[in-house]
């Protein structure tokens, strides 16, 4: 039993009202409303679609019709952006209840959130803000994850952040922090390979070392995305997790290394701004799928077929 089957299953005893499209071994793309007609015109496809939960927290109207429509034909991953699990403040109960309602209504194949915070003292900042890795934050974030999992009745996948700086008070590595969170709460992990590359570059560390230390057996989904390039005060590269372009070659290479190690984990290509035509996203998703398929037989035999 590998990570794929471990973290994509529905809870035993759950009665499905919607079709249980399997997500194992699939690649997918962010779902954007402007692509709905193009996606539907192509009929059934071997992909999954991921939505940002908050966009479907209105009472009714076209957003829900669109989500109902894609959910009938595709596995759907529900990706939360602003639960603020990483913050010191208590979880917003109303927001958690809205999230629970979405999980119940749409029975997503995957549910995920971020190791980050976005709300503080009543202000919502609409960004994934960083936190120090200490025993105190570990306890707090763990309690928040537990609270979310208890509320929605299933495990979540927690995504590693993209980093631009560090907190002086941090005492743990990010990989140790994530491993310990997963151990304490039973949550799975969403490994964002672009975030790994962005953080490693920005913090002057090795992406390969990070991946070696990452609790890969906990990974239930992988994210890929494009990034933008700036520079810091000393002229060193400062990468921005911008989700506004194709996946970088270096990120594809890291992705292949991950898949070689852990097999064909469901993989999503994110594209959230400067959104191109559906054909472009579909091609990125197909490129991810080709790598997954090369390693579909298993982590060991996959290596034999790894050469391009």
């Amino acid at each position: 039993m590998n990570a794929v089957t471990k973290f994509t299953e529905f809870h035993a005893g759950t009665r499905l009202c919607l079709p249980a499209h399997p997500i194992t071994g699939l690649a997918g793309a962010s779902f954007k409303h402007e692509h709905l007609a193009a996606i539907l015109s192509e009929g059934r496809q071997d992909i999954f679609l991921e939505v940002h939960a908050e966009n479907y927290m209105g009472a009714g109207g076209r957003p829900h019709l669109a989500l109902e429509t894609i959910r009938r034909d595709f596995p759907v991953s529900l990706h939360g952006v602003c639960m603020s699990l990483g913050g010191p403040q208590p979880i917003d109960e109303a927001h958690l209840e809205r999230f629970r309602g979405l999980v119940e209504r749409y029975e997503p194949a995957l549910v995920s959130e971020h190791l980050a915070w976005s709300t503080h003292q009543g202000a919502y900042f609409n960004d994934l803000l960083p936190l120090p890795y200490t025993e105190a934050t570990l306890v707090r974030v763990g309690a928040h994850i537990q609270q979310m999992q208890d509320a929605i009745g299933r495990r979540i996948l927690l995504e590693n952040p993209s980093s631009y700086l560090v907190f002086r008070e941090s005492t743990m590595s990010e990989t140790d922090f994530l491993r310990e969170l997963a151990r304490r709460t039973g949550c799975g992990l969403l490994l964002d390979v672009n975030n790994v590359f962005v953080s490693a570059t920005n913090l002057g560390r090795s992406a390969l070392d990070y991946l070696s230390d990452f609790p890969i057996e906990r990974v239930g989904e992988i994210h890929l995305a494009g990034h933008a390039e700036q520079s810091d005060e000393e002229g060193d590269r400062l990468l921005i997790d911008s989700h506004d372009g194709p996946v970088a070659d270096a990120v594809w290479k890291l992705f292949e290394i991950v898949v070689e190690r852990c097999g064909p984990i469901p993989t999503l290509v994110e594209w959230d701004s400067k959104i191109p035509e559906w054909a472009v996203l579909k091609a990125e998703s197909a490129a991810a799928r080709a790598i997954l398929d090369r390693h579909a037989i298993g982590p060991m035999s996959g290596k034999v077929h790894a050469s391009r």
Partner: protein
Amino acid sequence: MLAAERLVRDCGGEPSFAAAFATALLDPRSETPTVVTGPNEKAAVRRYNVYRNNVTVSLIDALAAVFPATQRLTGVEFFRAMARFHVRAAPPTSPLLFEYGGDFPEFIATYEWARSTPWLADVARVERAWLDAYHAADLGTLTPEALAAFPSDGLADAVFVPHPATRIVSSGFAAVSIFVANRTEDPVGSIDATTPEDALITRPGLDVVVRRLPPGGAMFLKRLVSGETLAAAAAAAFEASASFDLSANIAGIVEAGAFTAIQHGDR
């Protein structure tokens, strides 16, 4: 370190990494928090500015998404400068960004550089109401048959149950015509901006509909929405406008789908 500590305590809450990090996010005059650093003691200013930029730009983008006609009227640069002031003064209080900007029209009304376009705030009010209606709950509307079946001797004391999408915006300017002309990329013809227009926003199915209300119509609808009886709402509408046409207005609100049901009033 002292400056950062002072900032943390100024927040009034429990001192935390989040308080220290958040204080400068929307305040360009504040210095980079000292709780963070670049790797190997590198400077953190540009690195922290990534977050500042993400927060400010994404919230301005959120307002631009809610108020596209307003942005078309002002031009992108003017809109983004105006929105930046508002984002810094009044960041969202909910993570649901499609609910953001409820007080942006009020801000526009007091925005010094927008005084030459006094209709701008009302156009923004129509846009905010449009998005409320877009996300409102899916409910059926009062049918002509249900209205016809209602006992005629009880009509005067009848009350109407508002549909969750229904919004009314009264304007001293041609807010509806300007809104309609600027929600597309098509060229805008000549509009007399000083003609007063009242808007009724409804969503009888999946599509939001914005209508101009006839004289007295806004008063009539506002009273009905607040739960007053048909007789009381009609009386208020006649007082607001001598040319108020009761039967045409009743037919109009049914056609627009402004209400879900008609009920006997309490009296």
